[in-house]
């Protein structure tokens, strides 16, 4: 371990220097950045006004309108990004004279036990007096349990209460542990995230402010392949983006490498429990009422009982509205249900029958006759039960009304469980309840980057799906309690996943022109360049300057090249269709993933063919539009370079040294 740290200190210094320079840049030239930002904004508005009012080709609206919408999307993204990084703040963790207790959670599901061990050992080395390390093993592996015992850390797995209940993946794993440990703060680490010994001491001071719910630190990788073929490098996100979000008190919790205040998590868990219980009560009472209304009875007296019960459910609905405790409403309805069932089925007979059985045993013939009468009554009850399906009602619906949350293993789920990206949803809930967050720009843990395109795409697909689920379930634009900038910060991230549709338009546009000769704008002329180039160039300059040493190119390539993935993710969430995402781990590292990038390859081929087509059939014969050709072929080649990264990644084979380093640390 010691060697590991010695080797890492150098790497850590150089990596963290990126953040330092970035922060210095913001501090020294923030005003200049904002002035430039406004200038680019004005150029963008000017360009769009020209596009909308002067340049649309009215003869080809089918082509012109989608393109101008895609460009508008790009401009809105620019505006949101500008707001995001408007005034990034830099922080220094305050001194704190307390050493509160911290639970270190290492979450694992199916990772190699050797990998978990490495993380656990590093966690045991964290320099903090009041800490306890827990391995949260969702894989229920005895080997991991033994390993934990051997190295002296605690081990938690799900209990019996989780059987046949939704497990809620990582969120459920953490929620389960929260009920079993007692630390005031929780450091969450993914199984591969090897922490630095000072990960707690470097950031705990932020919690001196009692309103701070969590501190997020960057995620970095110790196996990053040369040249970052999969676009995994997260310097841009854990740099300008998070620094910007942090300035609006909207730093995201990213699932790992973060310390959270237990009280804040439990508090939002409770609030969500109450809100969900309310919804469940309302829905199920409604269901009950509806079911009762479908019951048909012949007997007049019984009909009256049923009618009375339906009226009582309406009464309980009103009780809920007036704000009476659910416990009270539930008890009231339960009593009324029992009274009705008793009236309908003659409850009490069974108790009487027991007594009579005793009498029969004692040879009382009169009692025997009575018993026979009871038997016939009982069969009537059974008929009634099947006739009215009244007892069917008392299934899940009644359990829900009885406040037992029958569908959940544990009623209070501190980490949000509604979406795949539990981290983002949890942060949003914390923010909406007035809690604050901190982003600390210093690498304090490093983990494994995906080593093949399959895993990389799988991971991104889940993120995209989860983020869209957050929009669907708890739209940040309408969620009560968020500030306007916080709404925008969440929306910016969610909005970025919609780029797939618009990027597809931008990728197809030059192909359409080059093959058909139909232009989306009135004319390809100098006017186009005058309007377009200043915005385009200044936009690039602004962000390049802002990012300082961080390369934006790979990110730009992937944000375009992943368009099929983003589209799939959105469709899967909104259509409710399960889209399987095939990853074949056996082929890992050595396999080819070309089958996963077919749409991108198709666009590359079509673009190249379109350029050649226009050149040979239009330009060379002398009847083509030269400026149109230059613009669109440049655009097409630019698109090809954007897409080429992912195709190269699909056939990427790591050098032995890089891939092996993980296992020999």
């Amino acid at each position, binding site marked *: 371990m010691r060697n590991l740290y010695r080797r890492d200190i150098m790497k850590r210094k150089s990596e963290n220097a990126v953040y330092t320079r970035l922060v210095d840049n913001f501090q020294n030239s923030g005003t200049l950045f904002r002035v430039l930002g406004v200038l680019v904004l004005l150029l963008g508005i000017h360009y769009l006004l020209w596009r909308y009012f002067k340049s649309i080709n009215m003869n080809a609206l089918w082509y012109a309108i989608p393109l101008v919408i895609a460009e508008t999307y790009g401009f809105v993204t620019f505006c949101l990004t500008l707001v995001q990084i408007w005034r990034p703040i830099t922080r220094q963790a305050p001194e704190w004279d307390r050493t509160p207790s911290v639970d270190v959670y290492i979450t694992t599901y199916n990772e190699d036990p050797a990998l978990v061990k490495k993380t656990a050992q590093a966690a045991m080395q964290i320099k903090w007096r009041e800490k306890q390390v827990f391995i949260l093993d969702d894989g229920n592996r005895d080997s991991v349990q033994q390993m934990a015992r051997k190295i002296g850390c605690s081990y938690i797995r799900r209990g019996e209460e989780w059987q046949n209940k939704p497990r809620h993946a990582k969120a459920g794993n953490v929620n389960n542990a929260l*009920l079993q440990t*007692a630390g005031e703060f929780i450091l969450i680490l993914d199984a591969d995230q090897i922490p630095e010994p000072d990960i707690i001491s470097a950031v705990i001071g932020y919690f001196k402010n009692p309103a701070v719910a969590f501190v997020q630190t960057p995620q970095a990788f110790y196996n990053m392949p040369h040249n970052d073929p999969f676009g995994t490098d997260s310097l841009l996100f854990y740099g300008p983006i998070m620094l910007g979000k942090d300035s609006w008190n909207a730093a995201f919790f990213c699932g790992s490498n973060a310390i959270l205040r*237990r009280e804040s998590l439990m*508090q939002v*868990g*409770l609030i969500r429990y109450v809100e969900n219980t309310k919804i469940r009560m309302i829905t199920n009472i409604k269901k009950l009422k509806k079911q009762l209304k479908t019951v048909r009875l012949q007997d007049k007296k019984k009909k009256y009982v049923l009618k009375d019960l339906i009226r009582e459910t309406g009464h309980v609905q009103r009780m809920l509205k007036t*704000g009476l405790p659910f416990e009270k409403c539930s008890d009231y309805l339960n009593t009324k249900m029992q009274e009705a069932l008793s009236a309908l089925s003659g409850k009490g007979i069974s108790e009487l029958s027991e007594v009579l059985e005793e009498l029969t045993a004692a040879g009382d013939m009169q009692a025997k006759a009575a018993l026979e009468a009871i038997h016939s009554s009982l069969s009537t009850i059974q008929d009634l039960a099947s006739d009215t399906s009244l007892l069917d009602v008392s299934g899940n619906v009644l359990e829900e009304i*009885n406040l037992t949350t029958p569908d959940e293993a544990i*009623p209070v789920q501190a980490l949000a469980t509604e979406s795949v990206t539990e981290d983002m949803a949890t942060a949003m809930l914390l923010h909406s309840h007035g809690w604050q967050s901190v982003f600390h720009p210093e690498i304090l843990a490093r983990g494994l980057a995906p080593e093949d395109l399959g895993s990389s795409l799988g991971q991104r697909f889940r993120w995209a799906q989860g983020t869209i689920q957050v929009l669907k379930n708890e739209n940040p634009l309408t969620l009560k309690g968020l500030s306007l900038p916080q709404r925008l910060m969440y929306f910016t991230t969610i909005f970025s996943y919609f780029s797939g549709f618009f990027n597809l338009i931008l990728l197809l546009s030059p192909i359409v022109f080059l093959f058909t000769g139909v232009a989306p704008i009135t004319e390809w002329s100098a006017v186009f360049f005058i309007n377009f180039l200043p915005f385009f160039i200044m936009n690039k300059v602004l962000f390049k300057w802002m990012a300082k040493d961080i390369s934006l190119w790979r990110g730009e390539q992937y944000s375009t090249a992943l368009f099929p993935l983003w589209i799939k993710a959105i469709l899967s969430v909104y259509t409710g269709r399960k889209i399987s995402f095939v990853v074949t781990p056996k082929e890992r590292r050595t396999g080819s993933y070309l089958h996963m990038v077919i749409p991108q390859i198709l666009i590359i081929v079509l673009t190249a063919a379109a350029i050649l087509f226009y050149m040979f059939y239009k330009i060379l014969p002398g009847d083509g539009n030269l400026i149109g050709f230059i613009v669109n072929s440049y655009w097409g080649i630019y698109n090809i370079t954007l897409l080429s990264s992912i195709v190269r990644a699909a056939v990427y084979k790591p050098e032995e040294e890089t891939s092996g380093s993980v296992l020999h640390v």
Partner: protein
Amino acid sequence: MTFSYTFTMHDSGICIIIPSGRLNAVSVPEFKKAVLDKISKQKISKIVIDMSHIDFIDSSGLSLLITVLKQTREAHGFLKIAALTPETVKILKLTLLDRIFELYGTVDEALKDA
């Protein structure tokens, strides 16, 4: 102040629990085990908790109340909480738990309503 608790069986078959001290993440695990054992092993499902000696309750403590509520009601019983101090009521209201529980002024009131 250390945390302690007592269980008293009332004539009506209701168990009155009197915890005292700070009901927080530190004291919850042991207390939770004791209460849940009562429910599952001794088949006691009707519980009234006298909160008058609780100086402080955090969200982990409140979360325990919800767990006990679920368990007792699953066993066709109930959990009633009574005699909360003004500070405890404040924390309960902050997490909206006053929408779940009827807050009884005294243990007697809770027993009467049982």
